[in-house]
């Protein structure tokens, strides 16, 4: 004997799923002004639907209550009219979805950008070879040994940044410089916890010195607009600008040593 519910279980299920869907959109698109990408929302909803269906069906009574109305719709002769309406609407909805998702558009296809290139173990810059596994920032030691000098080096790095980098990466290092909107992929946001905070200084040195053309052959084609900075900056200037990037954002470079 199942108890009479104010809202039938099937309707409850539908309302929860629709409610969660619109909550995501309201939260991100409206309240936070950072849209939730369609690809991510689809994945989120897949698990929300799975989780909700699991909760609604783990008991036999729950499963029967959920499936009951669907069974009745298909089998009950008194529901002929409703059945016919549903059997027309469902294929129409499926057809509409298929049409809208298959209809050609002028938008470029989505790219699975591998934004995170794997560094080589060795690379050439400034006419010499660098081993990325052992390469260290020569100025990093002054952070402890001579803080005043370190501060001066960071300041010099800041000057290099403002003269050369901020046009794309922004004066707040958030990847939102004056030229940023003209670039795709957009310049890296150094404030993001997932960018320079995840990397060793040697990685940054390689990326800055060799720029877009220095990116590895694997996972090509790269479409990075990053200039080859070894043609415009000295080795010391690159190391100093790296100090500045970490100092300004308050991040620490990736390291395997305890500090």
């Amino acid at each position, binding site marked *: 004997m199942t108890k009479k519910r104010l809202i039938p279980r099937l309707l409850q299920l539908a309302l929860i799923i629709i409610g969660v869907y619109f909550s995501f959109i309201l939260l*991100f698109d409206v309240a*936070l002004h*950072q*849209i*939730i*990408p*369609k*690809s*991510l929302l689809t994945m989120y909803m*897949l*698990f929300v639907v*799975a*989780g909700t269906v*699991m*909760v609604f069906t*783990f*008991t*036999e009574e729950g*499963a029967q209550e959920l499936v009951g109305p669907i069974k009745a719709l298909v089998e009950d002769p008194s529901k002929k009219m409703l059945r016919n309406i549903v059997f027309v609407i469902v294929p129409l909805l499926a057809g509409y979805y298929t049409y809208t998702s298959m209809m050609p558009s002028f*938008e470029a296809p*989505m790219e*699975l950008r*591998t*934004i*995170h*290139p*794997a*560094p*080589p*173990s060795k690379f050439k810059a400034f006419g010499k070879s660098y081993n*990325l*596994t052992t390469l260290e920032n020569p100025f990093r030691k002054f952070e402890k040994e001579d803080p005043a000098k370190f501060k001066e080096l960071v300041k010099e790095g800041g000057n290099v940044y403002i003269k050369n980098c901020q046009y794309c990466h922004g004066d707040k290092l958030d*990847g*939102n410089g004056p030229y*940023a*909107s003209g670039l*795709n*992929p*957009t*310049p*890296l*946001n150094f404030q*993001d*916890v*997932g*960018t320079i*905070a*995840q990397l*060793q200084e040697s*990685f940054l040195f390689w990326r800055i010195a060799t720029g877009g053309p220095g990116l590895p052959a*694997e*996972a090509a084609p790269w479409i990075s607009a990053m200039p080859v900075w070894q043609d415009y900056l000295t080795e010391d200037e690159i190391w100093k600008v790296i100090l500045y990037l970490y100092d300004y954002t308050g991040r*620490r*470079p*990736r*390291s*395997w*040593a*305890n*500090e």
Partner: protein
Amino acid sequence: MLKRNIRIIGVVFLLAISAMFMLPAFMPAASASEAAAPTAAPAAADSAAAKTAAVPDANAVTYPPAPKLTAADYPTVSGVNPRVAVWLVAQLHLWLGAFVVAVPMFVFIIESIGMATRDERYDNMAYEFIKVSITAYSLTAIMGGLLSFSLILFYPDVFKYLALIFKESMFAYALLFFAESAVLYIYYYGWHWLQGGNRKWIHLTFGLLLNAFGITLMLLANSWTTFMMSPAAVDAAGVFNGNTWEAIHNFLWNPINIHRVVANVAYGGSIVGAYAGFKFLSAKNKEERAHYDWVGYNANFIAIAALLPLPFAGYYLTAELYAYSQQMGITLMGGVFAWIFIIQAVLIGALFLSANYYLWCGMGRSDGANRYNPRIKYIAIVLVAAFLVWFTPHTLVLTNSELKSLGGPYHKYLGVFGIMPAKNTAVNFLLTFTFMSFMFYRRANKIATVSWATTGNAIQIALFTMGLINIVTLGVYYGYFTNTVYKVAASIPQVLTTLTIIITSTIIDTLMYKGAKDVAPLHWGRMPARSQYALFLLAVSFTWLMGLMGYVRSGIRQHWHVSGIFRDASPDAYTPTLGYAANIITIGTIIFMAMVIFVFWLSTISGKHVVAKGYWKEQA
């Protein structure tokens, strides 16, 4: 007669033990290479080279450098793609191998439980599991043979190069395989013969030997694979200058060993769970349903128990991979293979959800479960929320309009979920709440009778609350506001917190429910059919997951046969597109599942006996 049998068993046992002890004879003495574990392959090669130079050995074998091949050096067979052929055969061999290595592990434990409790049901279940694995054992051997032929046929120079370095261990592998087969057949065919008293102990010893041989075989094969990823004792030209043990004990050997042993148990549990589901659904009567429901419950328990430590074993392996080579690490998780990890996250989600769903459905076996049913939705909310964090990628898949709107490929708010500290926190929540599901299941039909039950519950609630707060604090503070070294290190206390919750809670629960009152008898077999499909989903997800991750592990070598020293010059020396790779793995999964169904079907016909009336001549 008995004495004679015991003597034969004794001789076989001694031979088997001797075979095990012979193994080190093929492996020269261990060195201190582990202490000087390389941060990169060349470093390891340098140290080994220096050592060889310092101690000249008149009998030392000189090894050739890694061959510099051209496309013409790779034989072809019309209509066969060598990479796909080797890929599929190797993967099928690994799936079957993982199953046949895993099953004896828990069969040994179940048999021991049966001996300790003198409950014959355990013994019957253990026998049934080993019966399923025996057909799979033949298939594993067939696939292993096919793999060897395929490698020799399509990649002769690669095989020759590796065989020269690993000749001793390959020979030992072949001998051990014979020993394992002998022990397996005695273990299986002697099951009903070696029953009772000392005989049962002898049988159990064979089970132990079977596990020792099986695991040793796997460890040897792992060393060949990991050598291709992190070669040890080789110079830049690929000249091997170490000994067998150094080649075996390469940088990634132990991380892979640990990961594979744990994963195999979980995988084996899931496959026998699917077997139980298959038998449950095809059961003809109530007793059969009850039996296979019980078997399925135990198999699911094994799968979950091994699944709990698996994320940590995986994390350790990945951390070691990063430590070995930043390039390999980034290619793996930040580069071209990163999207496979998103699929991995979804499949792990499917694993946890199906395991939990099975437990929740299982509460229907008890009439006392209604008390806990309203709480299940909260567990589900936490599990789903943890998954959303678990599979949120750092670099998003965006349309151009979304990219413009967000101002870059990283999301300002969701981006924080894209890195490891968030994933670690989420996975610890997943494990803790999965354990909570299990606790509810265990308690469903019982009422504690001890006087301190209320205090015990309060302690457990406090333990879970404090533990979860600790996990979040460690994840957020150390994950986002400190140096990377602390970020990686914080995962260890997070894991320890989860383990503390699980172990302490289990101890309290065991004491609290000692002599507890049953609400009503458990109704084994009172399970809906859909719960059995959760068991199938568990097995399929595991298989697919292993295929995907196996591809990634192998694929991060990219255009190298042996990373950094032996270049792949075949026409297939490129990383295929993700879609292509996923299709091959899916085809492999379908073939494997067809083989598994075949094995299950064989187990059903083996018990059938048709009386062919009038066919046989009447004997006087």
